[in-house]
């Protein structure tokens, strides 16, 4: 399908050029990986008068770790996340998430920042960023701002990003040197399929937990109610059963072509239990290897 609309194309090499270009157009759009944007251009969901390709801006590349904060640049692809040594050693569950996104050909191009800018309800990056209390670094007209992940998503395909705002990076604070996580994603087959439901669990020292669900509401859901019940306790079978009964009040899945509401609700209970047990056993050094499929 050809793209039937015309637009200007720019590939600046510095952020200062981007900031000068943006106000000159009514609907400028930023292009990084393009795996969502090019589809939106074909289907005319997006109508930009200018496309600003930021792949030439070196400052937006890379994954860094300083002062216990992980910084994922706007140009870091999911393949970069999977290959990153620092993610492998400090935040392995981020690589576990990244491995479930699309296929290698998509992951070589698609960025995590692009994923949260598209902000579709089933975006795989949502739960992990919610659980880690990540911050989105935005360059606006009046300088830089840090927006907490829980405020970032406004609805399906909606974020708080204002016109002419650009996401520079995502910051993720290390919650504890020794911590573990687990991401369980429900999908029909690997390689392409979008998430039908997902759960991300972090197990921290001192019996502290963080739980987030994806694709079962318009935005990622951080399950504070569950965390309150779990924190300070071992996940006994009785406690897990109690929490599983609480899950339907925490999430709000819909029925669509990929799964029914009832199926998603049912599977979230199972995925939560599997994910929690895996995260806790990983914290104790005995869990399944990161990246294995628990669904």
């Amino acid at each position, binding site marked *: 399908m*050809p793209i*039937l609309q015309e637009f200007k194309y720019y*590939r600046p090499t510095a952020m200062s050029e981007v900031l000068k270009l943006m106000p000159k157009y009514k609907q400028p759009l930023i292009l990084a990986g393009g795996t969502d944007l090019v*589809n939106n251009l074909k289907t005319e969901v997006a109508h930009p008068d200018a496309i600003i390709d930021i792949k030439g801006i070196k400052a937006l590349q890379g994954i860094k770790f300083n002062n216990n904060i992980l910084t994922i640049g706007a140009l870091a692809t999911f*393949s970069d996340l999977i290959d990153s040594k620092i993610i492998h050693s400090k935040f392995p569950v981020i690589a576990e998430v990244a491995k479930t996104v699309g296929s*290698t*050909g998509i992951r070589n191009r698609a960025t995590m920042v692009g994923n949260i800018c598209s902000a579709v309800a089933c975006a795989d990056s949502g739960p992990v960023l919610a659980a880690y209390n990540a911050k989105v670094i935005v360059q606006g007209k009046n300088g830089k701002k840090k927006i907490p992940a829980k405020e970032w998503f406004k609805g399906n395909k909606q974020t708080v990003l204002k016109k002419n705002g650009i996401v520079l990076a995502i910051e993720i604070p290390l919650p504890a040197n020794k911590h573990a996580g687990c991401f369980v994603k429900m999908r029909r087959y*690997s390689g392409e399929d979008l998430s039908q439901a997902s759960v991300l669990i972090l197990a921290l020292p001192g019996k502290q937990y963080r739980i987030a669900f994806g694709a079962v509401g318009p935005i990622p859901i951080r399950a504070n109610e569950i965390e309150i019940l779990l924190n300070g306790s071992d996940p006994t079978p009785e406690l897990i059963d109690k929490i599983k009964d609480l899950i339907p009040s925490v999430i709000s899945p819909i029925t669509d072509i990929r799964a029914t509401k009832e199926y998603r609700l049912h599977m979230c209970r199972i995925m939560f239990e599997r994910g929690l047990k895996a995260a806790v056993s990983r914290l104790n050094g005995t869990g399944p290897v990161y990246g294995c499929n628990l669904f």
Partner: protein
Amino acid sequence: MKIKTSFILNGHKILIDIEPQELLLDVLRDRLGVKSPKCGCDRGDCGSCTIMINGKTVRSCLVLAIEVDGQKLTTLEGLMQNNQLTPLQQSFLRNNSFQCGFCTPGVILSATELLERNPRPDEDEIKEAIAGNLCRCTGYQPIIDAITHLITTQNSSPSKEKRKGVKS
């Protein structure tokens, strides 16, 4: 407005005027006559439009042609050297790993990238690497067999063989 764009395609320098909205897949097939990348789903799901940019597989249906200015592109046509099939391609022939052949260029490029990074992948890693390439004929097993067969029969490191194959 057309913009002068240049890139290396299978070792040859290409200079071409491109409209910003032209898709890389269409430019390769319709303007440059490179027919191995195919248009299947046209939305990045099926992998039949797979090509390599700087040695990494991408979906050429999701790339604007203008984005690849200054990059090195490899399509299936560029894997051969001196008209010789790569060992991986020969293994596909030996194992009857295709019927209609529509998915094959993408599958071979994905497998080439895998072996380049990981010369001894296990079956799960092979499946993961080709998971984004849909085949509607063979049922995948002959494809997996071809890759496995190559790994088990080759004495020299497959990664070196592949590195020679990829011109980018």
